């Protein structure tokens, strides 16, 4: 059966896809351009800008820092976020309403303000080393995702199965690990991915927290662009895109992407 589509609707859909995909096409094109400046369409094709990245120590170092910060920060945020989400749902009636709002503050406050506040409090105030500051700062920045996404899967969790486990002789902490966690697994993984991607891409908080000798990849990209306007930037971007696509492919293959949109 053929469905009739209004010509305007079709045209509108094509425009939407164009605006979504065009910037990515331009980036990929620019990355392959055999010129020393950013241009599109590419003039000549080369992979030397990709090779260039791997020769630049700064990119390699900051990429590793970014990965470390993202992994540790996400882990820390889940460590706080999962119990917080659990408590907010389990004791929804008893706890004050403003408490759940408190956990989304980091995305409600303008990021630049949040970043500056972190600089004042943890870097200057507590005097923490740069790397630790970055991990703590990122953990706080992405905490809302952990709490909200894990909370969403706890909202449909039937807490009476927890009571069933208790009545069968399972102590509280073990009940959480063996009965609650397996049933909110999809939420935890979704929270991990969202938080990880947010951390990897963050500029506005990191720009305040990076310090001498320690920087993250997005900050390094900005710094590089200030000095050289060559296709290296485009090729780094393409690599970041490929990493994201790779993560998505793994998720799709193991869990199916649908759980992210549920």
């Amino acid at each position, binding site marked *: 059966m053929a469905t009739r589509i209004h010509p305007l609707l079709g045209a509108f859909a094509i425009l939407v896809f164009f605006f979504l995909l065009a910037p990515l096409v331009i980036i990929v094109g620019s990355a392959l351009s055999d010129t020393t400046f950013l241009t599109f369409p590419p003039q000549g094709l080369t992979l030397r800008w990709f090779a260039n990245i791997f020769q630049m120590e700064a990119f390699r170092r900051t990429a590793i820092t970014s990965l470390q910060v993202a992994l540790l920060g996400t882990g820390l945020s889940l460590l706080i976020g999962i119990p917080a989400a659990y408590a907010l749902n389990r004791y929804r009636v008893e706890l004050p309403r403003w408490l759940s709002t408190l956990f989304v503050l980091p995305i409600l406050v303008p990021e630049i303000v949040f970043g500056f506040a972190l600089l004042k409090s943890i870097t200057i105030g507590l005097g923490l080393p740069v790397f630790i500051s970055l991990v703590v700062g990122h953990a706080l920045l992405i905490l809302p995702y952990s709490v909200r996404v894990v909370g969403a899967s706890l909202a449909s969790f039937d807490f009476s*199965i927890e009571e*069933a486990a208790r009545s069968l*002789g399972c102590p509280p902490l073990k009940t959480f690990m063996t009965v609650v966690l397996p*049933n909110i697994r999809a939420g935890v993984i979704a929270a991990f991915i969202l938080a990880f991607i947010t951390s990897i891409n963050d500029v506005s908080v990191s720009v305040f927290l990076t310090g001498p000798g320690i920087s993250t990849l997005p900050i390094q990209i900005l710094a590089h662009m200030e000095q050289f306007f060559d296709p290296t930037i485009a090729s780094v971007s393409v690599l970041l895109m490929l990493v994201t696509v790779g993560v998505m492919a793994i998720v799709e293959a193991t869990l199916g992407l649908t759980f992210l949109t549920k």
Partner: protein
Amino acid sequence: MTVSLTIENLSAHYGTTQVLKDLSISVAAGELVSLLGSSGCGKTTTLRLVAGFLQPTSGRIRLGDRDLTTLPAHARDIGLVFQNYALFPHLTVLDNVAFGLKQRGLAKTDRTKRAMAMLERVGLAPLADRLPAALSGGQKQRVALARALVIEPPLLMFDEPLSNLDAKLRIDMRVEIRQLQRANGTTSLYVTHDQEEAFSISDRVAIMNAGRILQLDTPEVLYQKPASAFVARFVGFENLIPMKVVERQAATVTAEAAGGTRLHLSQDLFGPIKDDFILACRADGLAVRREGEGIPAVLGTRTYLGRAYQYKCKTAAGEITANGPLSDPLDAGAQAVLTPLPEQCCILDPED
């Protein structure tokens, strides 16, 4: 080994609201006692206190010679069957049933063997590898029952276990629950708001209202001899007629209802009668006659019940429902006399 459950002077609060008031009840070893009442009467609160999910403000809960009052829920060793089944969605039927055995440290082969034997008993062995989502409501409740029974708890508790099932399945399941409970001789506490269910399954039933037990008796006694107007109404006494004694002559009293209707009642037949009382009877407890001694009435709509005709009658004492014999159908508007039958009537204290 069967033990008794003793609840002594239990009180509980939600915030500042008292939901249980000095409740005491004891369930003998191997007995099944139901807590029956409408929602908010405290029956589920009582069960949750015994399970250890709530803490009482005062009172004690003992199971055999163990004091449960301050034990955490997981150390109480009580089998629980929930209204919404509460199966573990991520575990197979077999693993659900084996869960309690695993907590008790049984080796895998042992627990699989015992869980399978239990599934066999509830007729679900062929579904052992399924996930709960692939089961019907009745099957889920059987799994829940198996999961609670397999740990051989000294006490089984049921929280409205049949409410989510359809009518026919409810009757089958309650027979099954009763058989399993009898066979194991497990002391049981059963919470329900369904009178028929409570009466059919229990050794004794506690009728609850506003955080108190009003009457704890066998279903037969509750059905025939309720001890208060509330319980009488609860177990289906259609007619509660407030009366006052106006004259006493030897064993016979003359009592008057609203509107001046007078009745002569023999205390030899009705039992002792106080000056103020309520005459309580079901529709069957009043004989509908064309004439004689009794409450004069004008008959209203006649309904055919199969075993009798039921009349809504207008009397000076208010509307009364009475059943008349099939052999003598009377028409709406006919004059008749309603005579209380002593063995089917109760003399109750007036309500506050």
